[in-house]
């Protein structure tokens, strides 16, 4: 599979401004069983979780409904993030639902539902995340901006985006 085959048509996402949901969809070039397996063991998860340059240190991991994954995510700039995941549904090799927060007691934990569908020899993952409120959705998006590092927060947004617009207009 050539690298040029991976591109825009193989991934998509919807942003429904004003709603509480984010859906991310992506085709992975491997069988559904294998892609599903990569979500079930920490030796796999630690190899791919997070953007390029991120690593994880796991404190506890028990893949079962009600089980937990406690870990620290290390950003490329040296910042550590406490992460906590608990599985609420596991249906191999089709579906995983999980709660995602910073700690077990996190009142802002949110639920993501991952579905795995065979797409020829490949697998389409859809990750549907529903936030309890729109405000929480916005908070999480902001947090992930910070995690990505050096991203502008929403308060700087108009200056940032219109700055890009200006560069293009002048360039």
């Amino acid at each position, binding site marked *: *599979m050539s690298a040029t085959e*991976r591109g825009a048509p193989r*991934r*998509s*996402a*919807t*942003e429904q*401004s004003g709603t509480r949901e*984010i*859906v*991310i*969809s*992506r085709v*992975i*070039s*491997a*069988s559904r069983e*294998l*892609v599903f397996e*990569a979500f079930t063991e920490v030796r*796999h998860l630690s*190899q*791919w*979780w*997070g*953007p*390029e340059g991120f690593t994880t240190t796991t404190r506890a991991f028990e893949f079962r409904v009600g089980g937990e994954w406690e870990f620290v995510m290390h950003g490329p700039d040296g910042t550590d993030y406490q992460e906590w995941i608990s599985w609420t549904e596991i249906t191999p090799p089709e579906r995983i639902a999980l709660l995602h927060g910073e700690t077990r007691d996190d009142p802002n934990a949110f639920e993501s539902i991952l579905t795995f569908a065979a797409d020829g020899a490949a697998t*389409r*993952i*859809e*990750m549907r*995340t529903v936030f309890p409120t729109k405000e929480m959705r*916005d908070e*999480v*998006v*902001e947090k*992930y*901006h910070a*995690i*990505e590092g050096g*991203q*502008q927060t*929403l308060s700087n*947004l*108009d*200056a940032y*985006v*219109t700055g890009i*617009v*200006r560069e*293009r*207009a002048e360039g």
Partner: protein
Amino acid sequence: MAGVARAATTSDVFNAIAEPQRREILVLLRAGERPVTELAQALGMTQPGASKHLRVLREVGLVRARKAGKQSLYGLDAGGLRPVHEWTGGFERFWNESFDRLDAYVQDLEQTRQGSS
């Protein structure tokens, strides 16, 4: 379900800012509120033309208008840029990049297993 495509209309902020003249309007409004007459003049276009662009920008929440005497003043509304902000970073980027790594990882894993069996 396949990913739901973004609506291909100007009611989408991405389509709204894809149009160069509408981006120019945003640049002009960065300096502060302006009436449509000034915007039309600065852009070298007719007033109805500028009004049409402003309507699109208002519909997607990038521009807001307020009455000042007989005329309307148009100003930037950064809240409308939220979908662009989210697309360029944040949660979705985190997951798209994670899925890039997952894609590479499972392909390696598949090859390793085929090689060793």
